[in-house]
């Protein structure tokens, strides 16, 4: 099936979803460069792994479901795996950063139960009760 034979609504919907997803992922990568410190930069790629990949996969589901004449939903698996694995990676990276900050502070303690407020100069923690 060539592109001109596809119904207009499908072309529009697939195009809009794919571009939206790509834009969000792009903004995420720009954020990775532009944000100020490591802990802030951790937030940026989640744009691409949450809604960014979501929109692109939605475009893929729509396109292949119509052109292949049968539902194509295995893209959902990609979304599930990406949403499950990125938080784990981000937490590992963030904890590595915390560990490094603790190590480099003058009164270093490796004990995670120790309060990092008093340990790392320049990091302030707001305590919620």
């Amino acid at each position, binding site marked *: 099936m060539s592109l001109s034979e596809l119904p207009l609504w499908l072309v529009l919907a697939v195009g809009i979803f794919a571009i939206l997803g790509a834009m969000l992922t792009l903004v995420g990568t720009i*954020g990775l460069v532009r944000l100020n410190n490591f802990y802030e930069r951790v*937030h940026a790629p989640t744009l691409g792994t949450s809604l960014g990949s979501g929109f692109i996969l939605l475009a893929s589901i729509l396109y292949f479901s119509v052109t292949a004449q049968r539902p194509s939903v295995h893209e959902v698996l990609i979304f599930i795996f990406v949403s499950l694995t990125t938080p784990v990676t981000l937490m590992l990276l963030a904890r590595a950063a915390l560990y490094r900050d603790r190590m480099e502070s003058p009164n270093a303690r490796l004990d995670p139960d120790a309060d990092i407020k008093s340990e790392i100069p320049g990091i302030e923690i707001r305590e919620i009760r």
Partner: protein
Amino acid sequence: MIKRLLPYPLLFVGLVLMWVLLQQSAGIGQLLLGAAVAFGATHAMAALVPEQPKVRRLDKVLLLMWLVLVDVVRSNIAVTAIIILGHRRPEQSGFLRLPLDLRDKTGLAVLACIVTATPGSAWLEHRAADNSVLIHLLDLKSDQEWITTFKDRYETLLLEIFQ
């Protein structure tokens, strides 16, 4: 009896479903093959983790997924705005330490994944001593709103589901 045969029924169903989706065919051969793989995997899982998470309210799981979806959309818009505004933004990022009521391990894992998967908030470290968590927020100005969402929506729901 059924417990010994299928130690993790939900995992079993999930794995068979995954197999069928991956093969893109629900033929009897693929179903059998998927069931065999899932059977082996659930028993490997049983050998690894003796304690089994209890999902008490399946209806609440659906509600939780819906709430997460809505929040992901909202925070995507918010974080996009922050990145595009760049250095002119007035917001400040920062750390929060929150006390938790949730103690169930699976519940905490789910909560950590939700918080980190949502742009704008990251779960850094759980402190077992006082059951509190260290969280980094990209926009600390709206932290009160974020804490309310976190405590009232997610933690309450997860308490109902797992505890």
